[in-house]
């Protein structure tokens, strides 16, 4: 549960996801409805000049959002977004972290802004995100 008064610089509990398998990519395609073949069809990826399929950015995006919702609760989320700064590859193990970077009042609520990062096992950053949550 969120502290009602988290200090700027507070680290959120991190989480890990993966390693991302081809089965994960197929399941995310089915669950999300995004059937873009570049993520699930090796023949299509090769014809597109790539050595392999790669993970849906929105798979990592959804995992990254969990850092915030497991800390603040899903009903407290006001904004969430991320920039896809590098491609998540098959077999990547993602570590997702978050940190409180700002406190402010808006729409009658006390809110916190969270900086979020997804990093692969070799230190490569894949997503840089931000979220805003309403504090309890």
């Amino acid at each position: 549960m969120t502290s009602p008064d988290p200090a700027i610089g507070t680290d959120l509990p991190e989480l890990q996801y993966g390693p991302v398998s081809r089965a994960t990519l197929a399941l995310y395609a089915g669950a999300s409805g995004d059937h873009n073949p570049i993520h699930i069809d090796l023949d299509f990826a090769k014809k597109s000049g790539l050595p392999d399929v790669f993970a849906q950015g929105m798979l990592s995006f959804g995992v990254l959002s969990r850092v915030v919702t497991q800390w603040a609760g899903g009903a407290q989320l006001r904004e969430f977004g991320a920039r896809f700064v590098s491609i998540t590859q098959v077999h990547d193990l993602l570590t997702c972290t978050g940190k409180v970077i700002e406190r402010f009042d808006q729409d009658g609520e006390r809110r916190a802004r969270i900086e979020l990062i997804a990093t692969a096992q070799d230190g490569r950053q894949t997503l840089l995100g931000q979220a805003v949550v309403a504090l309890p």
Partner: protein
Amino acid sequence: MTEGTAAANPKGLFRRDTKGESIAPITVRVERGRIQFFSQVLGEGDPLFTDVAAARAAGHPDLAAPPSFYMVLEALADDERRRRGEPVAAALIGCDFRYLLHGDEQYSYDGLIYAGDEVALSTRVVDFFDKKGGAMEFVVLESLVTHVDRGVLLRSKRTLLHRLG
């Protein structure tokens, strides 16, 4: 070509004449089983997204959609548009999936979306621009998810790109 110019990119694949166009709203139903499947794949742990009894005990009418569930709603809307022979955003703007990447995705939430809801999705083509001397071209799309009684529940802003290098 300078960075950020709106001028046409000779290598570009996007249909830049669609700038400013809107895709008419279409209504989709939020299914509980789909929320559960989506939550399971992402490893969701918040009972608001996974446990109907816990969600109801916390005062919610049903499971809520996780933060990135907009992807599912959009896919459902696009499926329905295809059945009706109406254009979907990806086709309208000329996405080529061989070269398409996702640059950025931003959501703001005005209210939770629940299993059992019927929500309307609409999308607008906001802008096109280039970077790296035309080696990458970008499109910005904005969408709204609206409930007939509860108003706008989600606003999305998405940036997609083609790698043209």
